[in-house]
């Protein structure tokens, strides 16, 4: 169970007892071991209180009711949201699933959260946890590992080895083991070298992108970028450079630098709906109409805006889907960060789907 479980659960139950703690813990463990990856991903909708798959919602509650007969089934929506958050947080800390799924879930939580004021969120504890996971993961992946030293076991052949078949067989096994060890080490070192080159290449690309000061996608200098939505283009380009999830080093500094180069103030604010309406249709890249965009508010809004005929009919479905206010003011820097994360999520999802 996650170390912060009792703190998080105290948000909804002040008098938490050992007995209740145990019951909830058991249910969380069972959910993690029983549900498949896709269902676990869908728990994000429950965490944020969005409409979700009813069957999954009932199954989720059933786990807690099986452990605790007194578990409430009505008027405890927020408790269920907190429990869904606990399941997801426990999953990324000690769940036995593929690391890529952990990344996908953490990214999806962050993108769904959509930092910056579109709606108040009492779940900052969870968000911080997923954010922390991604930062650490991003940095772990970027550590350049030194090549491992190759040590070959010294073989001492005895003089009479040829006359003694059992000894010869033992020596042969030893030789085979040493050989395997060498091959593994060479493969491992080769992998380390490839990763190191990728890391350097990614960082160099980002550096040249900033120094070069021009957009790769629009083939124009930043200063001449007349796009009405430079935040989106820049976020998309930065996401294209990122090979290692998530956040390149000095992420915030990079964003500030490139935004200032296109003449956008990082802390400047604009209305979310206006920003979406201003995106020229030809500049909308890779809008995937797949389930994953249910976790990507900006992509979802762009998708709906393209489908609709006017500038306002897309507002209602977005508002309903993400329980957000599209007329809220949003910081340009946060918007870029959000679109960057969404692009990464879609990229990671595509990679996992093959």
């Amino acid at each position, binding site marked *: 169970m996650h170390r912060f479980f009792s703190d998080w659960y*105290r*948000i*909804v*139950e*002040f*008098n938490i007892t050992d007995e209740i703690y145990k019951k909830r813990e058991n249910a969380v463990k069972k959910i993690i071991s029983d549900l498949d990856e896709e269902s676990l991903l869908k728990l994000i909708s429950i965490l944020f209180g969005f409409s979700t798959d009813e069957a999954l919602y009932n199954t989720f509650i059933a786990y807690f009711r099986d452990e605790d007969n007194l578990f*409430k089934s009505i*008027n*405890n*929506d*927020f*408790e269920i949201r907190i429990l869904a958050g606990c399941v997801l947080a426990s999953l990324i800390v000690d769940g036995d699933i593929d690391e890529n799924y952990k990344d996908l879930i953490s990214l999806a939580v962050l993108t769904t959260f959509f*930092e910056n*004021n579109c*709606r*108040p*969120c*009492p779940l*900052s504890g969870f*968000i*911080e946890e997923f*954010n*922390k996971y991604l*930062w*650490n993961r991003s*940095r*772990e992946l*970027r*550590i*350049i590992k030194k090549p491992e030293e190759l040590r070959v076991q010294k073989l001492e052949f005895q003089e009479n080895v040829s006359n003694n078949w059992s000894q010869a067989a033992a020596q042969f096994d030893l030789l085979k083991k040493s050989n395997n060890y060498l091959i593994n080490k060479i493969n491992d070192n080769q992998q380390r070298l490839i990763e190191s080159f990728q890391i350097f290449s990614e*960082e160099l690309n980002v*550096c040249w992108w900033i120094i070069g000061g021009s957009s790769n996608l629009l083939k124009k200098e930043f200063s001449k970028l007349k796009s009405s939505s430079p935040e989106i283009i820049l976020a998309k380009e930065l996401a294209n450079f990122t090979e290692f999830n998530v956040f390149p*080093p*000095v992420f*915030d*500094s990079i964003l500030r630098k490139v935004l200032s180069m296109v003449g956008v103030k990082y802390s400047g604010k604009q209305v979310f709906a206006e920003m979406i309406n201003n995106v020229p249709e030809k500049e909308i890249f890779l809008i995937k109409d797949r389930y994953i965009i249910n976790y990507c508010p900006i992509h979802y809004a762009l998708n709906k805006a393209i489908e609709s005929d006017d500038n306002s009919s897309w507002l209602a479905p977005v508002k309903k889907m993400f329980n957000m*206010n599209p007329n*809220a003011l949003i910081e340009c820097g946060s918007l870029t960060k959000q679109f960057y994360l969404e692009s990464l999520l879609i990229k990671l999802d595509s990679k996992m789907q093959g």
Partner: protein
Amino acid sequence: MNDDIKLEPEESYKESTDIRLYSGTDCKLSEISMVMKKKPTKLIILAGPANSGKTTLLATLNDTFQKGPLSDYLFAGSRTLPGFERRSHLSRMVSGNLESTTERTKIVLPSDISFLHIDLYSVSTETIISYLISDISGENFKQMRDSSEECLQYSIIKRADHFSLFFDCKELVDNENRNEAKMNGLLLLRSCVEAGILNGSNFIEIVFSKWDFIANSEDQEKIQHLEFIESIKREINKRFSQKLPNISFINIACRPQSEILNDGYGLNDIVEQWTIRKPLIIQSVPDLFEEKNSRAFLKFNFQ
């Protein structure tokens, strides 16, 4: 027939009538999870010496929302309306008193602290925010102020999103009492911090109540009073800002005794402050790299 079952009609009737109805008065600690489990709820603790205006603030809040919206917020329901009404009752009675009065909060055991519930609708964000508000009586305040051990009993404060500490400006303008009033507040903060029940996750509002006493004073005196209040702010920041980074200062006058200030002066500031959500802490530089990092690109992180 099964002989074991001997249920008299009267008994069964008695059992069926044993239904506990919700009184609508204050929620006890054991009842607040009812509200908390339903939707996101902000827990607010009002603390301060007796007569510092905590209950008056609650009564004024109730009265204000009965008249209409308060800045961006509309009243959206309460499970404890009778509780609010009880607090407003005395102030509405035509009693011939020169000053409006409010029922005093009774001293209670820490486990018996009660809460009032109110839902507010924010017009700009189109969301409903739930609040559970408790005022700690002046006597409880004294006990807490004098001992960290006593503070520990009030573990609910640890869970509180907002802790509003009241300084009574009527005391602060009185040269004889003002230092004691200042020390009382500082001592309470110190006890709570030492006991570990207040920490960086709580928002602390230092509320200078009955601000009309400052606003009404003569020019020369007013400068002195404002200087004294500034000294309190400086001292609080100096002593506690490291452990309590979310401290803010608010001036209110719920029922001002002059026409310089409007009724409910500063009320919207405090309600606005209560809606602030905890800022997201972004993990910027993990320890992971501090020792091993020898790469120039990553070193930019530390600038």
